[in-house]
């Protein structure tokens, strides 16, 4: 079945004609040549080389100034702010998203409606509007207090002291992020088979355990890729905090650019490269996190890049040996 019929028919004839007969060479199949693919490859390589050459040789980019700015303390301070804002907002946003998703999936129509309204509102309003609105929030509410609803207060905060630029930025981004995270988490939870919920409750597993150990780990398989997408959006979204006078990576470059107008292009390149570095780190982490949560979902785990390289080299060695033998 697996052998083409022609092979068994022609073999005796080939043996009769050629002498001495060599079974291996007689049956060797030459793969199809694909000239179109080679041409396309060559064209792409030429274009890529041209692009790189342009990047390097065009004096407009001022690569010496790029080198000067890349590790300047002002830029690194901005990078640190970007990282801080990203981490806080990602954690708070995800936590809020989980709560919103659970509310949306709950049996209470009020919780469902509130969660839906929240997501609707924060997905509709641009992030920058949220940030600037919060920036002026202290003018609307002078103090924040903790106490009985509509009753006496136990603690009060003076909002102008509480609401530093950092707090405003993190709160704004978290509120925005939570709305998106809620949908990502909800999608993940819905992707878990109903039978899993039934099995967990038939075993009498406590409700919290069911969520933490049975449903959520399985939901993460679909949550992680979507949330990382979201996270990368967030990293770039932090550049908006510049408008609430927080000097993040972009803000630092912008400020330096207004002091040294001739260096705007290299400064933008510095910012670009740093954002590339950040998203690359996130992508690498994503690969390993996804691999972790793939356990049990696929029969075997996808190989790590190192394993792929090793397998590739081993395959190459085998091929070379085979070619040499023939």
């Amino acid at each position: 079945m697996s052998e083409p019929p022609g092979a068994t028919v022609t073999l005796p004839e080939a043996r009769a004609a050629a002498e001495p007969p060599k079974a291996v060479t007689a049956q060797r199949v030459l793969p199809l040549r694909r000239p179109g693919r080679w041409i396309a490859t060559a064209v792409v390589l030429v274009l890529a080389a041209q692009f790189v050459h342009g990047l390097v040789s065009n004096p407009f980019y001022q690569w010496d100034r790029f080198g000067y700015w890349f590790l300047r303390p002002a830029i690194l301070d901005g990078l640190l702010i970007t990282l801080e804002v990203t981490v806080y907002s990602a954690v708070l946003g995800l936590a809020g998203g989980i709560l919103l998703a659970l509310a949306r999936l709950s049996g209470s129509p009020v919780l469902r409606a509130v969660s839906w309204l929240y997501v609707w509102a924060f997905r509709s309003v641009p992030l920058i509007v949220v940030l600037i609105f919060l920036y002026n929030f202290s003018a609307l509410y002078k103090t924040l207090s903790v106490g009985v609803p509509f009753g006496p207060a136990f603690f009060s905060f003076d909002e102008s002291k509480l609401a530093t630029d950092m707090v405003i930025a993190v709160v704004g981004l978290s509120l925005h992020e939570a709305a998106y995270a809620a949908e990502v988490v909800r999608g993940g939870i819905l992707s878990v088979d109903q039978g899993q919920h039934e099995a967990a409750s038939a075993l009498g597993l406590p409700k919290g355990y069911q969520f933490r150990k049975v449903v959520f780990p399985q939901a993460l398989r679909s949550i992680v890729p979507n949330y990382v997408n979201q996270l990368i959006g967030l990293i770039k979204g932090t550049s908006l905090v510049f408008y609430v006078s927080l000097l993040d990576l972009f803000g630092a470059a912008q400020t330096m650019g207004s002091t040294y107008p001739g260096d705007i292009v290299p400064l933008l390149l510095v910012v670009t490269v740093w954002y590339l570095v950040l998203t690359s780190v996130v992508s690498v982490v994503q690969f390993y996190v996804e691999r972790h949560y793939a356990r049990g979902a696929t029969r075997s785990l996808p190989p790590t890049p190192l394993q792929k390289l090793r397998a590739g080299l081993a395959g190459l060695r085998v091929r070379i040996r085979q070619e040499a033998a023939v």
Partner: protein
Amino acid sequence: MTATTHRAPADTEAATVEIHDVHKWYGTHRVLDGVDLTVRPGEVTVILGPSGSGKSTLLRVVNHLERPEIGHVSINGELIGVRRQGERLKELSERAILTQRSRIGFVFQNFNLFPHLTVLDNVAAAPVATGKLGKPEAVELARELLGRVGLADRTGAYPRQLSGGQQQRVAIARALALRPGVILFDEPTSALDPELVGEVLAVIKDLATSRTTLLIVTHEIGFAREIADRVVFIDGGRIIEQGPPSEVLDKPRHERTRDFLSKVL
């Protein structure tokens, strides 16, 4: 299949299951229409019936995965999922129901193993989570039970790396880990390839000889004849007839039972 035939652990007390006048409906569709059934401790009861007859729903009412509109189920005299309040029955809190379910084994048609946990963790999880055993004891019990269903060498595998028959045997071990007094089987072999059915039935047969009350919904008539103490035939949400297999399967009195058996045999 090398399922060793030692008895169920001593602390498992075979349970009496009483189903009393249970009605269940979805909208205007009556799924169960007044079912009464008492299962004695250690008895093996096979429930037969055409699809849509309500047999799976009946099984799911027993561990309160479905709430009956009227009627109640009790196990060893304890009401399941409800408590008496004067003349009425009131549904228990979710936590109380979960505690009751941890004393009732349930085996699903589609196994429903936890795919992200190893075979060993699938079996050991529930006794730990419900506070019945410490982690080391639960793992030891899980190994013993997996040995009993013939899977001692697959403890580290993930469910998707196993065949359907092996997965269902893990699911049975998982149910046994809570040392239930009664185990409910909802068409345990319906999702299996024909050549894998035997290994699962062998494990259930092994359980039938130990003193555990079993309620089994199945289409395997030959198997029912072999292990059942009693066969219950359900159609249209009612029990049509019941009795030992020699009566219900060989000399059915009711027209509908004869009709059903002639189709499946």
